[in-house]
């Protein structure tokens, strides 16, 4: 893999603006809520700008790892501070930047314990950014955990609907994942005999025997898969999404679940390609069960956020199916789907969050006729719903199409099942839209305000990104290909 060192530490500056933002917030007195929000907006805006710049500054003809920063961190253990961006990492960095910035703007109306909320949110996002850019196993694990433990407080303090139960369940599930990941990482590092946590050094072919790869892959796949919402380890995710406050749901469903899928890709697949090929069928099976199961459970939900939660399970199944095909198209589709689904759920939760803040109910039965009360707010909801179904010209369409094409080639039966499930998902999402936005209007909510322009900014950003990548999917696919083609052609 060609490595190009950075002339300026772009990647570290992303982290620095998160950590710096966190520290600044900690030193602002807690009554100055507006200052805190402004600082958060500025710092998250910087991360967005840098990630957009990196996305377009990446040299696609050269490929490989670029913007690399590398120096010894703990020499006695062989740990290096090693950041780099490639065709898999950059879409995720861009996604994190977008979701983070829009999540901060979405929480502009927050009034309770503002300081702590934004401080924890910054910590969470620092972990997410770190994981997407790190190329050292030690740091990948550190960032993984850093992004998890603020979740407990974020959900338990600011959440709703059985928040303490959901927070505890989520934290324990995800930490159970890390209980599998850490032994697997240590196992690989020790067995390699290289005395290093450097991912690039460890992924040289021939470092691990086929048995070691199969063994470690399974642990890593389940460990990271828990976070990616792989069936049957997905149950934390709908409860967690429902309980979390809006911004946290956005970051969580939008970005955090991608950490799991990205971990499977970056750690499990990169280090154990033979294990990947060996277990691919199992991955495909679990993914398809997830797709079908998510859709059918979603059909019977009465809570708006639960609907999105289960549709997330189903959509993350598509990512898993893409990864399981072991083809270039599959990888392209999977990474694209991670990106598209991230933006889409962020928009979904953001619009539902607005409705919930006004109506104080998420029960579908209580809502109705909202499109006549708040046409703009429901507009965002409908765009998100259409993206979820995979309507052409919106980002998800291309992602799902790529995955389905490749899965038809490799697993015809699973591919058919997944496409059929997609039809059902159209049914259940449209039904939700119909019941909340149309039909008789609930008089209780008749005089609620619509989304103001200022509050609408984050949603508009999200919609425009969905449409942009729906119209120009090649911008994203060309990027991902710079990583997926060399990787697949390098397989033994």
């Amino acid at each position: 893999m060609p490595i190009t060192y950075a002339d300026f530490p772009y990647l570290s500056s992303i982290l620095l603006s998160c950590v710096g933002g966190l520290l600044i917030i900690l030193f602002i007195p807690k009554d100055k809520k507006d200052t805190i929000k402004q600082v958060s907006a500025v710092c998250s805006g910087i991360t967005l700008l840098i990630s957009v710049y990196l996305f377009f500054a990446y040299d696609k003809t050269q490929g490989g790892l670029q913007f690399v920063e590398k120096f010894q961190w703990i020499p006695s253990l062989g740990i290096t501070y090693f950041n780099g961006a490639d065709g898999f990492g950059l879409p995720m960095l861009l996604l994190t930047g977008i979701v983070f910035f829009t999540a901060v703007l979405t929480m502009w109306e927050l009034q309770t314990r503002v300081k702590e909320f934004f401080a924890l949110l910054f910590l969470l996002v620092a972990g997410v950014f770190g994981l997407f850019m790190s190329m050292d196993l030690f740091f990948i694990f550190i960032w993984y955990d850093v992004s998890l433990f603020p979740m407990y407080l974020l959900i338990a303090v600011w959440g709703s609907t059985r928040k303490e139960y959901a927070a505890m369940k989520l934290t324990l599930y995800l930490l159970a994942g890390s209980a599998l990941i850490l032994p697997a990482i240590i196992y690989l590092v020790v067995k390699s005999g290289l005395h290093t946590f450097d991912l690039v050094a460890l992924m040289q072919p021939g470092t691990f025997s086929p048995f070691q790869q199969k063994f470690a892959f399974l642990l890593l796949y389940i460990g990271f898969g828990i976070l990616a919402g792989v069936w049957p380890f997905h149950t934390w995710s709908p409860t967690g999404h429902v309980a979390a406050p809006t911004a946290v749901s956005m970051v969580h469903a939008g970005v955090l679940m991608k950490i799991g899928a990205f971990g499977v890709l970056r750690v499990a697949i990169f280090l154990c390609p033979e294990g990947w090929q060996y277990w691919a069928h199992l991955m495909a099976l679990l993914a398809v069960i997830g797709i079908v199961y998510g859709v059918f459970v979603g059909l019977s939900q009465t809570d708006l956020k639960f609907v999105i939660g289960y549709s997330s399970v189903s959509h993350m199944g598509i990512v898993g199916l893409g990864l399981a095909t072991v083809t270039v198209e599959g990888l392209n589709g999977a990474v694209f789907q991670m990106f598209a689904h991230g933006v889409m759920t962020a928009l979904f939760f953001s619009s539902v969050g607005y409705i919930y803040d006004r109506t104080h109910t998420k029960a579908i039965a209580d809502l109705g006729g909202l499109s006549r009360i708040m046409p703009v707010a429901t507009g965002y909801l409908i765009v998100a719903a259409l993206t979820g179904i995979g309507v052409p010209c919106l980002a998800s369409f291309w992602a799902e199409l790529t995955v389905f094409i490749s899965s038809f080639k490799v697993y015809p039966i699973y591919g058919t099942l997944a496409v059929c499930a997609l039809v059902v998902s159209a049914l259940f999402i449209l039904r939700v839209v119909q019941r909340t936005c149309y039909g008789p209007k609930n008089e209780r909510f008749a005089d609620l305000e619509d989304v103001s322009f200022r509050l609408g900014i984050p949603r508009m950003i999200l919609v425009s990104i969905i449409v942009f990548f729906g119209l120009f999917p090649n911008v994203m696919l060309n990027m991902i290909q710079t990583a997926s083609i060399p990787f697949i052609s390098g397989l033994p």
Partner: protein
Amino acid sequence: MMSWIIFSPEFYFLMMGTVFLCLSMVRRVRPEQVYFIALILASLGVGVCLACVRLTGDLFFGAYRIDLFSQVFKVMLSMGLFLVLCLCTELDGIEERFHPEFYFLLTICTLSMMMLVSSVHLLTIFVALELSSYSLYTLVFLRKGRERGIDAGIKYFLIGASASAMMLFGFALLYGSIQAAYLVEILKILPGILNRPVVIIALILLLSGFFFKLAVFPFHFWAPDVYESAANQVTTYIATASKVAAIAILMRIVALSGGGSTYLVHILVTLSIVSMTIGNLAAVVQKDLKRLLAYSSIAHAGYVLIGILSMNPAGYSGAIFYALSLLMMKFTCFLVVVKVADDGRNLDIEQLAGLHRRSPILAMALMLALFGLAGIPPTIGFTGKLLIFTAAMQKGYFTLVLIAMINVVISLYYYLLVVKAAYLLEPEKELPDLQVSPSIKVLAGLLIFGMVVGGIFPNYIIELSRAAAMVLL
């Protein structure tokens, strides 16, 4: 004469003990004065230990060794004493007239533990261990409100005495089979005859004395009651300094077996797994914070054993690192206990309610310490676990590491319950902000800083503990 310089930390603490012995005979001294003297002397003691870190040598006909290993632990012990004394501003758990005795016993206990980590002869080990145990028994008795202290004190004493008896029996068997009492000589003979049943039994019996100190299953029964019934400051001392000493001597003894026999390793693996599982499962249902921390100590004893039973340099250095991290994290928890229970009472977990408002810095320190105990990065506790698990993995103990990680997840549950109490629960009636003196705030800030830096830049400590561990082999 020059060679006695290497004995200066012990001399210093002996002098310090004498000062308090004299003070205990003077009736007209105010508690604040005693406290002030104690704090100054203890901080100087840390300095003395730091100054002597690089000294090496032998004393008392080779029965007492000063090396990097012992000196590093002496620094930790003196730090432990100093930190515990920092908490003694309101020593409400102990009657005022006993304050000089309290400081005296604490100093002597530290002194004897310092001797313990330097002992390389079976007799000096036994003498030092008993001296420290007896000081602790008395300290537990000193709790105000007699019944409580006496009940736990007697339990502590009885279990301790029987553990000592078993240890003596182990000494006798070991001496009987190899006719050597110097650890250096034992080290030469022991690995060759390690598969003899009598030697294995001797080693296990011998280790039980230290298992008692470390609260490893099956010698853990005293821990919850003693933690609950002793005065908060005494509990802090037992949970921090005394554990550090126990880890040190356990390493010295286990290192004797060289590569280790399979029997010994199997027994240690079993004890480690049972300790951490029992500790973590029992901690889940605790209501009293000190009891919870007691069970978490039992679990941590299990984790430390993983490093020790790996019997490789990485394992020993991991255990040394872990000892330091435990010292910091446990102390931070007890700092919060002592400050929130400002009248010296015991603290229920629910009484932490509203801590995030009453004292943000204490709440933050508590949260970081608990996450550290649960082994979540980027805290010092994670680095310790990583070192220990890597060492075990080098020996191929994959299942052991997996079981330990599952235990970590269980432990996270009850640590989160405590975090929840501090950050989520609101007290039933409005409580005033905690009066936390600036010095305690600085101390809490330093601990937070230390725990995070130990997690992010642990390189120096790792190098130091590795150098200290090399001395053992």
